């Protein structure tokens, strides 16, 4: 049995979803919901395999399987599973399963169900592939497969906004992937090896300019993937326009691939570049700050949550940038925790959309009476993301702040400020959607009598339980899961866990945050009134437009297009011009040869 698990579980985890995705269009013909159930079962099996793998790797044992693949370029199909990979695998299969269950009713009324589930399985399978890849090129290939499937999932509704954001998503992510590919190519050309297991040793003693270039390209590549400012512009659009379960996957897992890749490449392969540490931390702080500021001014609930993803990713980047054991632990913990509460938030908003047909917070209000379960889940998630003890977000944020504090105290203050603003913004979200008394302007097609089905409630409750559970049992969690991961990456060191009972400047600051939030809550009417004042509204506009970063990108794209648009005149349709090109080419080449060879004829 053990041997079977060793050899086949990783393959099953990758290829079962990918291969079964081809059958869904066929199965979906018989019954509309059949595809959904099929996908759920497949994902359940996948999750089973990752659960089976977990005990093996937690004993610090790595699975390294090699299969022949492309001999022509010395490439094997390698599976490398250490504690980190398998934990990511478990997280992926868990969230994908929940999202699939959530989709059963949520996506039922929309057409193209077979396509949706097929792509969904493809996406989950390829994510597993990313986490289990033992070879850089294979990693890259699975990464691109996730991008393709995500692209198609984002445009699922085919509204103009969805199409635009899917387009932007694919182009930007592919740009990142190309940077990554160039980095991989640099390594391959210089070292001739792509296996992650051996590269770490090979590169540890190398010191070359090309290595720096490769590292920079890798950072940019994963930076786009994990939405580091100013490369984040794809994220808010993509995450807010996708169907809600897909948004949950995108925010919960897809962006984490970037973080995972950073950890894998920088800790596992290159060795952490301490010289860049402060730059990375500053970038992370900037990401966190800009993300939260932009989130504050949103009225679209999904967009607000999406900006918070940017902001939370900033935390992870900051923690990553410290380069310490604590920082890495904080990064990983926050990664997992963020998956739970962010997915939960998207599920909650999805439920709201399901019930009311809108995600515009200005049109919502007072929903706590109509959907109490959803409200409680939303409350839990909001408190978790805002870092209120004893929920899971508190611990990981505390660890991050502490880790950053040890390296750069100034930046840790930004982390705290961002935490307070996060709190503020989720206060707004909860207030506007669930609390305030307002007559609802619901979509006419939707009926308020429509009940939230169990298939949507169960995933929400499960995630809320996770948020609470991982908060309450944070110590055990760190000990049992995070420590083996850190050990697996060959890093030793003490893990520090902030506690609500332990007096430290950071924990007390988070209390200040809570008090502040309370004040905000009490004075909410007045604050909203102030916010709508003129100087604020100008600022408001500025943040809503993302400080012009997005516009700069589209200007760039437009200028590229317009260059070629103007260049079209060389294809004048005039035969004379065409023949002239030919003659000119003849002339130039002859001149070149004549000058090159001079008069020293050899033949």
């Amino acid at each position, binding site marked *: 049995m053990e041997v079977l698990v060793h050899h086949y579980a990783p393959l099953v985890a990758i290829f079962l979803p990918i291969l079964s995705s081809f059958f869904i269009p066929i199965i979906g013909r018989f019954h509309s919901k059949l595809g959904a159930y099929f996908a759920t079962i497949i994902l359940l099996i996948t999750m089973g395999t990752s659960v089976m793998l977990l005990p093996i790797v937690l004993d610090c044992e790595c699975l390294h399987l090699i299969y022949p693949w492309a001999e022509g370029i010395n490439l094997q199909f390698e599976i490398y599973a250490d504690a980190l990979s398998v934990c990511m695998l478990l997280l992926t299969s868990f969230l994908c399963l929940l999202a699939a269950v959530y989709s059963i009713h949520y996506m039922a009324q929309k057409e193209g169900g077979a396509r949706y589930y097929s792509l969904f399985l493809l996406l989950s399978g390829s994510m597993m592939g990313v986490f289990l890849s033992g070879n850089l090129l294979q990693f890259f290939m699975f990464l691109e497969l996730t991008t393709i499937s995500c692209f198609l999932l984002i445009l699922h509704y085919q509204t103009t906004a969805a199409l635009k954001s899917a387009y932007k998503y694919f182009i930007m992510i592919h740009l990142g992937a190309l940077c990554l590919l160039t980095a991989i190519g640099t390594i391959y050309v210089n070292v001739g090896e792509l296996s992650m297991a051996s590269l770490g040793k090979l590169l540890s003693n190398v010191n070359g300019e090309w290595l720096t270039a490769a590292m920079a390209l890798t950072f940019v590549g994963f930076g786009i993937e994990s939405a580091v400012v100013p490369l984040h512009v794809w994220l808010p659009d993509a995450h807010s326009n996708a169907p809600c379960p897909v948004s949950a996957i995108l925010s919960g897992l897809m962006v984490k691939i970037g973080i995972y890749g950073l950890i894998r490449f920088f800790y596992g392969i290159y060795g952490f570049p301490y010289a860049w540490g402060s730059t990375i931390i500053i970038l992370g702080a900037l990401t966190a700050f800009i993300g939260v500021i932009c989130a504050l001014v949103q009225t679209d609930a999904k967009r607000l949550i999406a900006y918070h993803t940017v902001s939370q990713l900033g935390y992870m980047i900051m923690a990553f940038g410290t380069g310490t054991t604590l920082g890495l632990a904080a990064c990983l913990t926050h990664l997992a925790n963020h998956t739970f509460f962010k997915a939960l938030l998207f599920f909650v908003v999805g439920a709201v959309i399901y019930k009311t047909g809108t995600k515009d917070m200005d049109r919502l209000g007072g929903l706590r009476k109509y959907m109490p379960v959803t409200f409680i889940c939303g409350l839990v998630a909001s408190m978790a993301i805002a870092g209120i003890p004893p929920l899971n977000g508190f611990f990981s944020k505390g660890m991050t702040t502490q880790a950053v504090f040890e390296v750069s105290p100034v930046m840790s203050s930004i982390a705290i400020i961002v935490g307070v603003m996060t709190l503020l913004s989720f206060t707004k979200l909860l207030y506007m959607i669930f609390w305030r008394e307002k007559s609802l302007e619901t979509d006419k097609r939707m009926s308020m009598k429509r009940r939230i089905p169990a298939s949507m409630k169960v995933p929400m409750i499960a995630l809320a339980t996770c948020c609470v559970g991982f908060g309450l049992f944070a110590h055990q969690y760190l000990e049992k899961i995070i420590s083996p991961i850190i050990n697996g990456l060959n890093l030793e060191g003490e893990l520090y866990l902030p506690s609500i009972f332990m007096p430290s400047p950071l924990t007390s600051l988070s209390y200040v945050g809570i008090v502040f939030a309370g004040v905000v809550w009490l004075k909410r009417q007045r604050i909203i009134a102030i916010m709508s004042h003129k100087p604020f509204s100008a600022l408001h506009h500025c943040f809503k437009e993302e400080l012009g970063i997005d516009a700069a990108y589209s200007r760039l794209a437009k200028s590229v297009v317009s260059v070629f648009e103007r260049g079209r005149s060389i294809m004048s349709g005039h035969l*004379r011009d065409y023949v*002239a090109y030919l*003659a*000119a080419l*003849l*002339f130039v080449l*002859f*001149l070149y*040869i*004549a000058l090159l060879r001079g008069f020293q*004829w050899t*033949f």
Partner: protein
Amino acid sequence: MDLLMGFLFIVIIASAIAAVELKDLLAAALALGACGFFIGVVFFLMMAPDLAIVQFVVETLTLFVLVIAITRTHRRSARSEPVRIRAVLGVIVICIFLLFSFFVIPLMTEFGSPDQRVSQHYIDRGIEETGSENLVTSVLLDYRAYDTLGEIIVLFVSVLAVSLILREKPKGGG
């Protein structure tokens, strides 16, 4: 003979220029025919009588087709490009010509003494191997008969092509 050839070349180039510059397309076609005809004469002087004959025949046929075509269309030539463009393009063409004549031609084997590496075989053994008195024919129909096959295919296809292009009612489509 050099003098004769020199004279012929002058005539050829003159008629070529006439073919280019004459406004009346029919007259220009005749000038073109004259050019081809004199080239045939040059072929004859260069010891290629078969070629000369084929050149005459083909030239006559081309002229015939051209005349038919011109009678079906305009006889008067359309305007040329404006002078400035003509000057620029002329300079390019002259440059190509100069490059050729200063760099390429000096590299070639002297006119009149080619490298007959392979042809020597045809000259030495052609008659006995193919049984044809005419070496050009023996090359064409025996040593390199495959080229001739290709040539016939081209001719055949062009008949097909012309009939396709000039068919009565073509339908539009994508």
